């Protein structure tokens, strides 16, 4: 792997910081490097997650649907170097947002099947990445349990909130 590219990735992407250079090389080895024009959809909201992407150069917009047939709204921008779609490496769950390139970009696609092969072979690279991702998983679970706890602590108070959330959801689906 190009030393400068490695240094850039490792120093600025937390997901890769525990990896040794040769371990990052293993990930890069089966990745697909792509040069992408602006306004290209990299991920689509709701599609199955089968790869993680590393944005090596460029900028992407993160879009979410605002209702059936009502289009999308931009909720964030991602700049290089960064990672997105990484949770697909754990469970292949549907994508939670659409990602579209805003500028000419360079992306590395890390395929789930290839990552699982590393995982099955017991490669340190895979497990170091998984350990980093487990923190995100654990945090999300804690947040959701806490949401449930809130309803149990004040069920009467939170009924109004449940109804409000239901109405918001109904409106977004209309």
């Amino acid at each position, binding site marked *: 792997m190009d030393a400068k590219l490695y240094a850039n990735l490792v120093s600025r992407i937390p997901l890769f910081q525990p990896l040794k250079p040769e371990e990052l090389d293993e990930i890069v080895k089966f990745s697909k490097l792509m040069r992408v024009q602006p306004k290209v959809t990299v991920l689509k909201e709701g599609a199955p997650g089968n790869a993680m992407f590393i944005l090596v150069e460029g900028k992407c917009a993160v879009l979410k649907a605002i209702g059936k047939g009502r289009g999308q709204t931009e909720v964030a921008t991602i700049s290089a170097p960064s990672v997105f779609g990484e949770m697909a490496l754990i469970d292949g769950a549907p994508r939670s947002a659409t990602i579209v390139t805003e500028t000419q970009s360079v992306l590395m696609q890390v395929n789930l099947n290839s990552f699982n092969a590393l995982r099955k072979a017991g490669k340190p690279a895979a497990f170091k990445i*998984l350990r980093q991702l487990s*923190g995100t998983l654990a945090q999300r*679970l804690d947040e959701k349990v806490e949401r*449930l706890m809130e309803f*149990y602590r004040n069920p009467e108070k939170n009924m109004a909130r449940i109804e409000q959330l239901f109405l918001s959801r109904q409106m977004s689906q209309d």
Partner: protein
Amino acid sequence: MQRREDPLPYMQQLPLFKGFSPTELEVLSTVFLVRRLAPGDMLFKENEASASFAIIVAGSLESFKELPGGRRLELGASGAGGIVGQKALIDGKKQMSMVKALAPSIILECNRADFLRLFKADSPFAYKILDLVITDLSHRLRSMDDILDKMLSDPSKTLTSVLDALAQVSGLLGDGETEEQDGVKKYHVDI
């Protein structure tokens, strides 16, 4: 001074330790502490630092969160082969629930520092444990999404019905119901 009980015979009972050589098992036995818990013994407390995790050899442990007014939200139980205290493996942040013995139990406890040492040494056992924990976390996250989704699907139900539905959807992973026991009102939500 009490002699430390040898964890090796207990490790040999568990599927988690299958596939490791006698030498590897000897090395692993140095990081585990055998502990015996009586029913009601608290293993982990909510909000304390996650300093260790445990593998259950025998018996069962329950996980729950305390609610105001002497109520509690039960999050499930684990038996032989189960792992509790996963936070110690992941980020060492505070425990998010209480873990208590339901029955006389034997556990193998490993502290976070020892696990990290194994992990940094690229131990296949550390990877195996992490693999199990991540798979478990992923399933529990999906179950929670289902539970929260069902809550929002029909708020026209009465408050009692919502709570019953919450208890019922815990049947995603086990039987769920509300009950009162020894003056403590319990809600079961298996995740």
